Each structure stands twice: as C-alpha cells, then as structure tokens.
C-alpha cells in the first residue's frame, strides 16, 4: 500500500501545474484523495481538525442506503417471479434483480460522475463527493424497467441543471436525485406512468412477447399496478388486491426499486439519525404532517380513498424513502432548527394532500419535496428574522 502512495507522489508532478497532463489535475486529485487522506496540514485557524470529512459523511449515507438496495434487488426478482409465475428460489430472484439493477447503477455513476469530473476539470475545481450519494439514490427511485437511455438523459439533466450550474454540491437548491426522477416523469409520461413499468421484464414482454429469462406469459389476474393505485379505492382496494399493512411495511410489493421496504428504510434511518448526518426533526415532522392530513381526511372523508387509515400513507409509495433519504438532504432542506420542523411538516402534509386530491398523479412525495426545497430558504428567512427580532426585544428589556 505504501508503494501506491509513492507511485502517486511520483506521478503527481505530471498532473500539477506545468506538468504534461496538468489539464487533468482535478481528476488526478479526485483519485488521489479517494485513495488516501492527503498529507495536507492546517495553515490558518485551528491547528487540529476533526477526523470527519465530507467523504466520510457521504459514505455513511451510502451505507444507510444499502439495506434498501439489497431489498430492492431481491424484490425485483420476486416481483418478476410473481408476475410470470416462475417458481424461482431465493438466489434466482436475487440474481435476476442484480442483473436488472446493475445497469441502472452503471448508467447512473458513469454519466453522473463523468459530468462531475468534466465540469470540475473545466472550472479547475476539485471533484466533489456529493455524487456518490446522488448516484446511489437515483437507481433506487426509478422503476426497474426504465430505458437506460432515458435514465442517462435524466441523470445528465439532474447533474447539470440541478447541481453544476449552481456551483456544485452545497450550492444546489433542489435535490438532484429527485430532479432526475421528476425529469423522467414529466418528459416521458407515457413510458413512466401506468401499471406496466414497475415490474421487471414486463415492458419487454409487452413489447415483443417474451421476457428476459423466460418464455412464459404473465400469470392470470396480474395487473402490475402499485399499491398506491389500489389504495385509490381505499382500504377495500388494497384488501382485494391482497395487500396488507404488513406487506406494505415489509415491502414485497411493486414500486420503484428501493422505495418499497419500510423496514430496510428504517434501518437506514437509524444509521442516519445516530450519526447525525440527517435530521430526525425533518423525519419526525414529515411523519406528523402526513398523519395530520391523513386523519383530517379520515374525519371529513366521504370517498374510500379519503377514508384510508392515515397510517397507511406512511408505508405507501415513496413516502418513507423520501422522508428519510430525500427530504433530509442537508443542502436542500431548511437549515435552521425551527425551519426543519416547518419544512418537514409541510413535506409530509403536501405529500398526502397531493395523493388524496390529485387523481392524475398518485405519488405526491417527489413533488412535495421539490416544492419544499424551493421554499426552504424562505422558511429559513422567516425563522431567522423572528429569532433576530426576539433577540432584539430581549436586549431592549435587559
């Protein structure tokens, strides 16, 4: 391993100013700092520094996403198996899911990191590690059957418009991963909505009559609709589709790759909250907001959907995933502590509102978070103003 450091030091001059490959210095530095913590010492200010850096923070978020990813891999195989009635065993399902999800990751990281490296290079900046998380998130929030070229365009849009034009990680106002999904859904609505894209292999089957790895047709009575669609008919709708609260909680249901299992998401949430990387205040208040609107709808409700018990909204669709991993993005969420409560509450409340009152679009989470990302600075502004006013009053009295 020391040889590696020596080798990197040896080739460093080539990439430094004046060297032959100096135009690649951002790329070199990115690899260098990825391989080892550089021997940079403090120059001004504090002489010692905490061991934590952004790479560590990001790797923790990536770790927190691993349970959802693993579950998503299995569930992709499981859904395929159910749809085509293949009678597969556990490892066959995992292998199928792995083969389907690997390309999503390849596209996400190659396109995303490629753009990051190029833009860092063009501006002479250092490559930021923020995309490690974004690239991990994107495949988890898209349908498994998304065409790869669409995903590539969406990733490029998210990274360029969502992040780089603002100046990179830390400067963006919208969560780039969600922007990617929003781009997909609004640019390719015919491909991105409906009942047929959520089950791996189904799109291909419908297009040319054969699905990957099997020649069977779909089983009788298969609809492919996600639980959210069934929930549109209220609790009876879910029951007649054979989906219980426990199914929604465990996650062996249709949906985007990584968003279905609340258990796996909760494991990630525990890690994020324990390490303090994501704010528990946002998560909690988002749950409170969703329940508040849910109960309100229960109280006033006349249609079956409005009467769907409020707590179902917590396990349906992308709510749990969005609350834990997307709404809590420290850059795009509210920054003040009071602001976090307001922001989280509104995310939860808006999600359920969109679900209940917008028949055209079932999943409210994406739009709710993007909208609240937009308003987060405004919330912070009023929180800060109120705090300053309170302080001024205190000083006057004293």
């Amino acid at each position, binding site marked *: 391993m020391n040889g590696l450091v020596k080798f990197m030091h040896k080739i460093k001059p080539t990439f430094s100013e004046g060297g032959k490959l100096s135009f690649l210095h951002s790329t070199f530095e990115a690899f260098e*700092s990825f391989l080892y913590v550089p021997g940079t*010492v403090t120059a001004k*200010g*504090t*002489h010692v520094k905490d061991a934590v850096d952004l790479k560590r923070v990001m790797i923790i978020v990536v770790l927190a996403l691993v349970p959802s990813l693993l579950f998503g891999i299995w569930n992709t195989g499981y859904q395929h198996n159910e749809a085509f009635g293949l009678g597969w065993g556990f490892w066959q399902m995992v292998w199928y899911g792995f083969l389907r999800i690997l390309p999503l990751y390849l596209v996400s990281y190659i396109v995303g990191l490629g753009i990051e490296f190029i833009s860092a290079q063009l501006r002479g900046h250092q490559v930021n590690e923020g995309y490690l998380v974004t690239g991990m998130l994107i495949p988890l929030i898209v349908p498994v059957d998304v065409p790869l070229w669409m995903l590539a365009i969406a990733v490029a849009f998210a990274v360029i418009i969502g992040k780089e034009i603002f100046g990179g990680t830390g400067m963006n106002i919208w969560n780039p991963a969600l922007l990617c999904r929003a781009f997909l859904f609004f640019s390719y609505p015919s491909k991105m909505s409906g009942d047929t894209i959520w089950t791996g292999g189904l799109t291909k089957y419908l297009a040319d009559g054969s699905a990957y790895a099997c020649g069977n047709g779909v089983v009788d009575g298969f609809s492919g609709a996600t639980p959210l669609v069934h929930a549109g008919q209220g609790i009876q709708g879910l029951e007649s589709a054979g989906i219980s609260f426990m199914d929604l909680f465990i996650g062996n249901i249709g949906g985007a790759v990584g968003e279905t299992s609340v258990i796996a998401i909760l494991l990630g949430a525990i890690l994020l909250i324990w390490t303090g990387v994501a704010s528990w205040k946002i998560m909690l208040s988002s749950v409170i907001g969703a329940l508040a609107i849910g109960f309100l709808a229960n109280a006033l409700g006349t249609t079956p959907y409005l009467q769907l018990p409020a707590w179902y909204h917590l396990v349906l669709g992308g709510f749990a995933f969005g609350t834990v991993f997307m709404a809590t993005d420290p850059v795009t969420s509210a920054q003040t502590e009071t602001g976090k409560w307001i922001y989280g509450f509104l995310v939860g409340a808006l999600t359920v509102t969109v679900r209940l009152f917008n028949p055209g679009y079932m999943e409210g989470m994406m739009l709710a978070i993007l909208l609240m990302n937009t308003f987060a600075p405004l919330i912070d502004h009023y929180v800060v103003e109120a705090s300053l006013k309170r302080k001024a009053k205190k000083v006057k009295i004293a």
Partner: protein
Amino acid sequence: MSNIIELKRGLNIPISGTAAQKAKKVVIPDVVAVKPTDFRGLIPKLLVREGDTVLAGSPVFADKLSPEILFTSPVSGTVTEIVRGEKRKLLEIRIKADKDQKYEDFGTEKTASLDGDQIKERLLKSGLWPALVQRPYGIVAKPSDKPKDIFISAFSTAPLAANPEFALRDDLNDIQTGINALCKLTKGRVHVSFNRENYSGTPFHKLENIVPHIFGGKHPAGNVGVQISHVSPIVKGDVVWTVSLMMTAAIGKLFNTGKYDVSRMVAVTGPKAVDPSYVKGIAGMSMKDIAEYYDNSNDDIRFISGDVLTGTNIGKDGFLGFFDNQVTLIKEGTECEILGWAKPFRTGQFSASKAYFSWLTPKKEYDMDTNTHGEPRAFVLSSVYSKVLPMDIFPVYLLKACLANDIDKMEKFGIYEVIEEDLALCEFVCPSKIGIQSILSDGINLMLKEMA
C-alpha cells in the same frame, strides 16, 4: 454568588499533553521579541533602532493612529534585530536581554488615590494598555472610550490551557489591584466569570469590586465572548473591554511595584511536549529557551503560541505572544493515510461526530496532529456548527455574510459579538474543512475599514 449559567453546547477537545502542575524551571531570557502582529489591525510606528538599549518598560513601538498607545520591551537589553516581512511589514523587534534586569519606574501609588485619567496615563506609558481588548472586533482598546463594562474570565476551557489557579497562584493580590484600577476606567462594573466546577474553592472567589458570574459547560464556556453574550449581548454602538486574568495581574503589578512585569507561568503542553509542565517565563520568550521540552530532530513539530484552536504557528525559532501563557507542541501531520476516510475504525483519530467510533472512548486522549483529514468543500452540513457554539447567533449565516462582504448582514447576524476564538470550535468540527476563523477575520477587518 449569582446564578449558574449552564451552557449545554460545546466540546472539550481531548488532546494529550496536559501540563503537570509543577514549575520545571525559570527561563532566563536570552533574546525576546516584541511582535506588532499580536495585535489585530495595528499599524506600528517603530521607536527604536538596532543597537539601542532599552529598559524593561521602555517603548519599542507605538500605534501609528493613536501614538499615545505604547508597546514596551519586556526586558532590559539591546535591540539586536528588526525583522520585516513582505512589503516591509514590521514583524518582530528582537531584544537581547541583559544579565541584570533593569526596569523603568512608573511609580507605586495606591489605585484608590488615582482617578481614571491617571490610571489610563500609567497604563499607556507602561505598555500595558494593549492588554485591554475592545469588543466588538477584538482590537486594542481606544483610550478615548469609556466602556460599558469590563469582562474578565477567571477560567479557561481551551484545549490544554494553563490552569489559572496554578499559573497565577502568587498573583491574587496583584489581580485585586488590577481590578481596582480597571474599575475606574468603565462606566459600568468589572464582571468576572468563574467556573461552576470550582467557584467556591478557587482563591479568586475572594476578589472584591466585581460582579461575579458562574458558567458551567464545555469549551467555549471559558471564552469571554461567550460569557458576554449571556451576561449582556453586545449590540451596535456598545463598547466593552475584555482583559485576561493574567493581564489583570500584570496591571496590578504595575501599580504595586511600579514595574512593567510581563513575566508569567507558561504551560508547555501538547502531544509532542516531553514531560509537559510549567516554566516561569516572559512574554516574547524564545522557543529555544524551552529546548528540553521537545526533540525536533525530524523537524516535524509545530510550535504554537497559545492553544491548538486559536494559537499562532510561530515556528521553531518563534517567540511567545503577548497574550499567551501557553505553548503547544504538536506533530505536523504530513503523512498520507490510505483509504483513511473509508476505514471503519480509526482508533487514533478523534471525531466529535458519530461517523467514527471515538464516542465509545470518551476518556481517551489523542495525540492529534495538524493533518486536515480531508479537503475543503462548500458548506454542506449546516447543523454541526451550532452544536459547539453556545451563543444565540447563526454561524453559517454570519460566515456567508462575511464571504459576501455584506456589512448590513454581518451586523444583523452578530459580527459585533464574536471574534475568531468564539467560532474556533465550529472550524474544528467542520466536515467541509472551511477556514471559518479566517473568513471571520476578513469580515472583521472589513468592518474595521468601513466603520472607521
């Protein structure tokens, strides 16, 4: 005693090398330096030439803008060298000390019989006026001001800081005289803050003529700026002064003995210090005078005058700062650590966050070095800063206002209340490795320029 103000937010940095409470030796200074760079924003006017002889207390340079503020020599001897930096900036005046120390005599008079103007005149003439630091901005106090109050912190929570009960154990009487003198310079009172841990046991609780306050909590509870913000926050137009306890003792000595005496007990600390303990030293003493405390044969030690958060890197040939009674010796962390950020365990590293496992060993002390442990990035995690800042301000907003050179916003977000030392912990914990103290310095310098 008054109520205890308990500060919940803060962080004690567990660095190894606390000074044992023993005085190892008396430094007989050879060459000492007087450094204009110890004072923020000062434009010095040199008053001596190489070869001049000075007494302890003879002026060496003055403030160009208020020439009545004199900066004097801590020893009697001969000016040997005037060190200048870029653009001929005056850095150091080096003075070779005589064997027998001779002092200027500023007269011994009871402070009770002197009025404010007479006290001011003696402080200005003796070179002790610069011990008075003005808030806002942390600059040398203006002689024309009469501050709202004067604040003294009787304890320090900074990493490895000298223990005042030990370092100032013989100076209680002088501190009282100093406080009596300071009382005549303010419209208000002299406020002294004690540590909750030992406020009834410390000899300083016998001090009179003061408004006592008691603070509990981790660093920066001992920072005078934090204490002020809880006692009476500084708003626009306010001027308060702060004095360190050690400097109060020096002021007391001036009135009790008539001498400019900035000798002090200096704590030699840090992971690289051999047998860390105290020496009897003097402001401006050379690092060569404490050579037995370190082995710098690899040339890998950083010499810090002050503590690891706010001190100055003075180098191996450096000199102790005017305000400092602590030297910290740490290793330069120039080694690369393979995949360091990805290792699950890094037991030799401390992190205040739970991203590593140092929370499992709360009592452990770490041999910290100067490695930055990462590269600078934009602000990403905005909630880490307020956890170590027990003040009612928004640090990220203030820093962004400083970066944007926006004076109105800087004012709004509390630039008057803070100096670098108050935000030093924010810089320590920052995962984006942002130079927070230096951003704040630039902000304060801009305020000084624009508000002058």
